[in-house]
């Protein structure tokens, strides 16, 4: 093994030895990886038509400049196909945007993962799953694109567990956390279009996220949303945590929330995404009495506290609605952000 600039090279005699060497070099998330040979990394860069020296983004707090070559090497390690690389590059660039503030969610005791949401034609071309087992196993693109982003974090951005990643608990999404929106199977405006892109463009949205909480309410739309709002109003999420950061007038952090809604879009024919957001925004809240009981607010519960409510999301736009999940049922999920928007904001970038 020799050191050349900041790139480590290694030799091996067979593939099993290579996989073991990758473990020894600290390049894995605990699962076996595909050895990132120079030829395979070059193949990925060629397929994307990108120069390996190009800077994807910077992490100044850790003195890191992330090149396309580093991203490609981690995409190989993760088991990606070459054609997935543009998605991983766009997600990495989004994650390194200043407003995502990567040094926060990637180091915090809060234990966030980076949720990747893919929209547009690329999601269908690459067969990125937007349906059954949305957050589950069984699809190479979802599994390896999300994993590649985690390996970029660990290997290129120094988010090493126990060192610069100080998650107390974390969640399984830290292995991989990538979905697509089923945007051709709904009348709803796709997420990337709501965020400024054209329907024919492909884009990736990254979101510093807690784990998904499944919501099993499957009745009429109002009943489903009532249950979603209740789940999103839980004590103990980042949003209902005491606000050392964020809007000091609120006393809690607030933040963004992703809501995925599955099933048949026809159930929602009389609802737009804006309608859904407005309904939820009015109901994602917690009483002052509850916040005092949970010691989020100081002081004893006083008369009237049961009827005084604090919103956990500041504006309807802070709720990102995604049509995704199996066609079998109108189940949904709630994913709170890692922190307030001043700590990290969802970022969308075009895939090119």
């Amino acid at each position: 093994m020799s050191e050349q600039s900041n790139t480590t090279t290694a030799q091996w005699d067979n593939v099993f030895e290579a996989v073991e060497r990758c473990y020894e070099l600290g390049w894995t998330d605990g699962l076996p990886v595909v050895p990132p040979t120079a030829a395979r990394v070059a193949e990925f860069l060629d397929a994307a038509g990108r120069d390996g020296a190009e800077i994807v983004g910077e992490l100044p707090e850790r003195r890191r400049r992330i090149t396309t070559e580093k991203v490609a090497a981690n995409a190989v390690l993760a088991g990606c196909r070459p054609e997935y690389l543009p998605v991983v590059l766009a997600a990495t660039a989004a994650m390194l945007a200043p407003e995502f503030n990567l040094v926060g969610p990637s180091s915090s005791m809060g234990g966030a993962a980076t949720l990747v949401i893919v929209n547009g034609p690329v999601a269908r071309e690459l067969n990125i799953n937007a349906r059954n087992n949305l957050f589950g196993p069984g699809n190479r693109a979802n599994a390896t694109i999300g994993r590649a982003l985690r390996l970029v974090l660990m290997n290129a951005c120094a988010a090493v567990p126990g060192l610069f990643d100080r998650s107390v608990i974390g969640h399984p999404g830290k292995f991989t956390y990538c979905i697509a929106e089923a945007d051709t199977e709904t009348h709803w405006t796709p997420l990337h279009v709501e965020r400024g892109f054209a329907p024919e463009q492909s884009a990736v949205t990254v979101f510093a996220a807690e784990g998904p909480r499944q919501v099993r309410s499957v009745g009429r739309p109002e009943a489903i949303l009532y249950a979603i709002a209740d789940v999103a109003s839980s004590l103990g999420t980042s949003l209902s945590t005491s606000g050392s950061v964020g809007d000091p007038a609120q006393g809690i952090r607030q933040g963004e929330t992703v809501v995925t809604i599955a099933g048949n879009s026809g159930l929602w024919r009389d609802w737009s995404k804006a309608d859904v957001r407005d309904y939820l925004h009015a109901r994602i809240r917690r009483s002052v009495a509850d916040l005092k009981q949970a010691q989020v607010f100081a002081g004893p519960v006083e008369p009237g506290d049961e009827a005084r409510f604090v919103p956990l999301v500041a504006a309807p736009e802070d709720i990102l609605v995604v049509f995704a999940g199996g066609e079998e049922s109108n189940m949904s999920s709630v994913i709170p952000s890692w922190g307030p928007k001043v700590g990290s904001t969802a970022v969308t970038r075009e895939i090119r």
Partner: protein
Amino acid sequence: MHDGIHVEQAGLPSATICTDRFIPTARGMAQMWGAADYPTIFTEHPIENLTREQLRQRAEGLAAEVVAVLTGS
């Protein structure tokens, strides 16, 4: 750690206090910025559950060390 190291490198004396569960992270950050010898003050973890009075007592116990780091004595 990041801010303390940068304030020091900008020519202003700084003293950084860190709880002892974060020793490897603090040392790693100092090495990353070429300041492996940066004099960090460590205190027992945790502090987030301390009352205001307990936190004051903790700070008073560290004051002499802070002065020593700031004055280089």
